[in-house]
């Protein structure tokens, strides 16, 4: 079992004030929804956890692998544990779907043989089997996002970080994503940043609410929904109301 421990993290882009100051948060095994309005710092936090960005202070740890101010060897060890799908995923030109996933696996440290062996599984997991020979750049937006997920999953990382994976997708594609998410093992730490609250109940185990760079809530989905008044029975409404409570401070 792995979990992500973030402690005392500071981060800010050069031209702006700090997004995070002394941020402490932990993500437990299971599916966590990282909620927050636009500009709350969700993508930045995901990028920090994926080691794409480095915090100016503090530590980000997965079990004993440290993602901050470490040697390149340690960083590689850390990255082996993490799968990341950015919001603006864009495939590598010139490769077919299957080749793309194999390349992603190789980049994640898999041997050529292993990447070749595992790629069909990842492509199948995201439902792109029939398009495996098609050029990655010729896929639709939703298909490309699934391709990115296949690339992220191929090395079977313990931590899966998905940044707004369903943003801009049609309901059918969103549903497909939910189903893929459900297949991920409970032993994985899966963090999905989103501002779509309708999917929370049933798809996630935990909720973290991030507003203006600080954590407003970190707990189970049921704890989160309990914030809503008892007379509201529809789970979707309860989630929506709880979210509003944490983000806007109103019920």
């Amino acid at each position: 079992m792995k979990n992500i421990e973030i402690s005392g993290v500071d981060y800010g882009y050069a031209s702006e004030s700090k997004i995070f100051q002394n941020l402490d948060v932990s993500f437990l095994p299971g599916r966590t929804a990282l909620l927050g309005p636009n500009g709350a710092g969700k993508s930045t936090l995901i990028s920090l956890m994926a080691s794409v960005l480095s915090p100016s202070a503090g530590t980000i740890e997965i079990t004993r692998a440290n993602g901050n101010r470490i040697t390149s060897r340690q960083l590689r060890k850390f990255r082996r544990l993490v799968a990341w799908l950015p919001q603006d995923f864009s495939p590598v030109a010139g490769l077919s779907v299957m080749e793309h996933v194999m390349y992603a696996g190789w980049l994640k440290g898999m041997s050529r043989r292993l990447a070749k062996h595992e790629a069909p599984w990842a492509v199948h997991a995201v439902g792109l089997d029939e398009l495996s020979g098609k050029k990655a750049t010729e896929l639709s937006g939703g298909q490309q996002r699934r391709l990115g997920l296949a690339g992220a999953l191929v090395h079977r990382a313990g931590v899966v970080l998905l940044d707004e994976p369903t943003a801009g997708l049609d309901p059918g594609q969103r549903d497909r994503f939910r189903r893929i998410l459900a297949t991920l093992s409970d032993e994985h730490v899966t963090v999905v940043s989103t501002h779509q609250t309708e999917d929370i109940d049933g798809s996630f185990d935990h909720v973290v609410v991030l507003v203006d760079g600080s954590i407003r809530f970190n707990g189970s989905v049921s704890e989160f929904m309990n914030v809503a008044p008892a007379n509201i029975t529809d789970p979707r409404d309860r989630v929506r109301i709880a979210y509003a409570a944490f983000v806007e401070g109103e019920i």
Partner: protein
Amino acid sequence: MLPVTRRPAWWLLAPAIGLVVLYVQQYVPSLQIIAQREAAVAASALLLIFSASLVSTTAALEVGRDRASCGMTEVSVRSKIEVVAVRLWPCLVAGTIVQMSGIFVLLDKAGSAPDRFPVLITVGLLCALLFHAGIGVFLGTWLRPRFAVPFALALSYLWLGFAWSFDFVPVRYLAGLALEGCCSPSETVDISAVVALIVFSLAGFVGLVLMAGGVDSRKLRPRGNRNWLRLVAGIATLGLGTSLGLFAARDVGVNPVVARPLADAQCSNSVPEVCLFSTQLARGDTRHVYADTFTVLAARGMPKVTQVFSISGDHEPVLSAQGVANVVAAPGQSRSAALESAASTFAVAASNTECGDDVSTDIYGWSEVLKVWSVQAAALQILDSEEREGIPDTSFLELISEPGETDFAQQWQVLSGFDEQSQNDWAASTYRQLSQCQVPAQLGVGPR
């Protein structure tokens, strides 16, 4: 890892080889490389235009593919060097194949040769490809493919072309194209030029890849201290490589050659003794023609020659006071060409005399007349009538005879009408006069 069929280098390989073969067939004169492996391989330096362009363009394309993607390389477990290596190897292999194809075509054109395959020059040329790969990696990382790819191709060519004729000669050897000026039967490559190329190319490649590491944040300016450090380290490495390369090539001349040691020459048992290098003898031994020519001309009153060499170097006199002649001897030259080379020694030696600016330019016209006479005199005794066809060639005399000035073609006509003894007297006295910067008197006919 990446499938072979998806690599642009392989797609561009066939057209590049086609262009190389076309270029060699159209422009490379066989005479320049015949029977000389070293000269043939050195001549392939010019083909870097094709191979290096292929490498830089495809490197920019390959690296640009990763740059244009998002969500893959940012969290790579593989080191940047490993990723760049996977991207670059087809570019470098394709560039090597193109360069080697050119070398093979040129070697085929050169035919059988007594010298060994010049491994060092080949290594130098292949190292040059690394530098161009560096150009592609840097531009492909720094700029969007739409800009990076055309700029990589343009920069690659401009570096080769610009350095090729740069006034400060050592710069030429950093690019490698100037190795094309090597070699000849009497000259071998100056290793310093190749060392300069290798040192610069390797350091340049490392420098450019380091610089690419500093600008890989998809911004025009590096972000973060570590990236600035990489950029500075890259520039410093490039600077160091340039300095070392320039230092290595500091004494290399316009042509990257040194004279072959005379000890390598093979001497005849004739009088005068004629010593030629193995490449000069590879397509037929003409040493006896040289010996016979000097013997005939000595009998006709010209200075006696005791030894004949064919060595290079500006400081080597064409004819020394001790009677040592330095002739031009190309492999595969005909008997008549050998005779012309030997017979023109006296005229060339005379015209090489330092006479200052106040001497009439007629002195060169008379040297030409002396040359025509020497060739004619020797040819009549050594060559048969068939070999003598077109000899002596008097067209140059027509060319230098300006209206209102001395008509050297007509002077030759007058001279050839003299009896043998008079001709001998004229030749001996003309040679003496020209050697003392004196203009000989005309042979009875006025200006044209």
